[in-house]
């Protein structure tokens, strides 16, 4: 069974936030909830690197493990989804997540957190596919349409790859190989410190 994965190539990510807005605009995510975001390390310093982060749809997802109401589940293709009707907004998944992916809109009662919202890999949710309810609660179900998630599809530099884990890995491997293959800036001259 194919497993769906994200991979962000930091050599290519330029911190343009295209993925962030593509996700929000496509799925009508409310302001304040970030299913995806770009993080820059060493901003303005030598060695500055950016990376786009969202739910990584972990194989052994800690969020699923800690959810007290089993609202989070994993599909056969590896996509981790939340059932917003079951979710109680306790925030345990957020504490368990190494990527800070779960997001909580403000609820109405006592400032409680609303149901958890996170990246769906553009695969909608447990409601009926393409139903108005699915769209309202989770956004588009592009996987059902046979399309890639918006963030990766709209990535400016194709830094963000999404799709079958094997293909993603192959593409990335090929890129890394290509970068190291030359005899100029990245190859021998670098290896032997030739100026």
């Amino acid at each position, binding site marked *: 069974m194919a497993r769906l994965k994200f991979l962000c190539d930091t050599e290519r990510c330029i911190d343009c936030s295209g993925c962030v807005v593509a996700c929000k605009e496509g799925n009508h995510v409310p302001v304040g909830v970030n299913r995806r975001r770009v993080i820059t390390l060493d901003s303005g310093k030598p060695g500055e690197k950016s990376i786009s982060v969202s739910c990584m749809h972990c194989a052994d997802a800690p969020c699923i493990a800690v959810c007290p109401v089993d609202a989070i589940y994993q599909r056969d293709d590896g996509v981790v989804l939340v059932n917003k009707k079951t979710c109680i907004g306790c925030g345990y998944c957020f504490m368990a997540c190494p990527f800070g992916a779960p997001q909580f809109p403000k609820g109405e009662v006592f400032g409680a957190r609303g149901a958890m919202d996170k990246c769906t890999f553009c695969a909608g949710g*447990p409601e009926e596919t393409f139903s108005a309810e699915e769209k309202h609660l989770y956004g588009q179900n592009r996987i059902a349409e046979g399309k890639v998630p918006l963030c990766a599809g709209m990535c400016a530099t194709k830094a963000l790859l999404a799709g079958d884990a094997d293909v993603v890995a192959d593409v990335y491997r090929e890129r890394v190989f290509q970068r190291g293959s030359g005899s100029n800036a990245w190859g021998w001259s670098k290896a032997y410190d030739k100026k």
Partner: protein
Amino acid sequence: MAISRIRKSAGDSAVGAGRRVTLNPKVARRSFLKISAATAALTGVAMTSKMTRKANAAEKKSPYAGSTKVRTICTYCAVGCGIEAEVHNGVWVRQEIAADHPVSRGGHCCKGAGAIDMVTSPKRMKNPMKKVNGKWTNITWDQAITEIGDKLLAIREKDGPDALHFNGSAKVSTEMAYQQRKFAAFWGSNNIDHQARI
């Protein structure tokens, strides 16, 4: 550690009876992947889109039945990225990935990814307006054009055409830009310029 509680079956009843589409295991995956990976590396584009697309071909269905796709161009910078706008019953419902555009290959920055907002933003002007005694007032197009035109003609009469300056735009189409320059010429002044100057 968490394996014990991960539901492996997508059809689990607790999750709801919703129809979920997963990748079709019948596709001879390995050989097919090789091809798509090669293409991906060649173009530098995440061609994995093809993977999911083809694998799901049998179950393909659109949430917007009968919608049309309009190819258009992003309105922000001069790179000229392609946009595929999906229009359903006269409404721009969503922005599709223009993966075949030769320059952008579906890519957008944050501005272009939110291009649809140009149409949907609640901040858009809704009616012609003028200020009356310091307060904004809605007026009709007729009134606006009549008042503006009369005023312009009066100024032209009194001070000549050079009393008008026209700031044109780099945001309009080439045809419109051409009309702006032509307008100035027919008005009788060279007082026209646009953002390229600055």
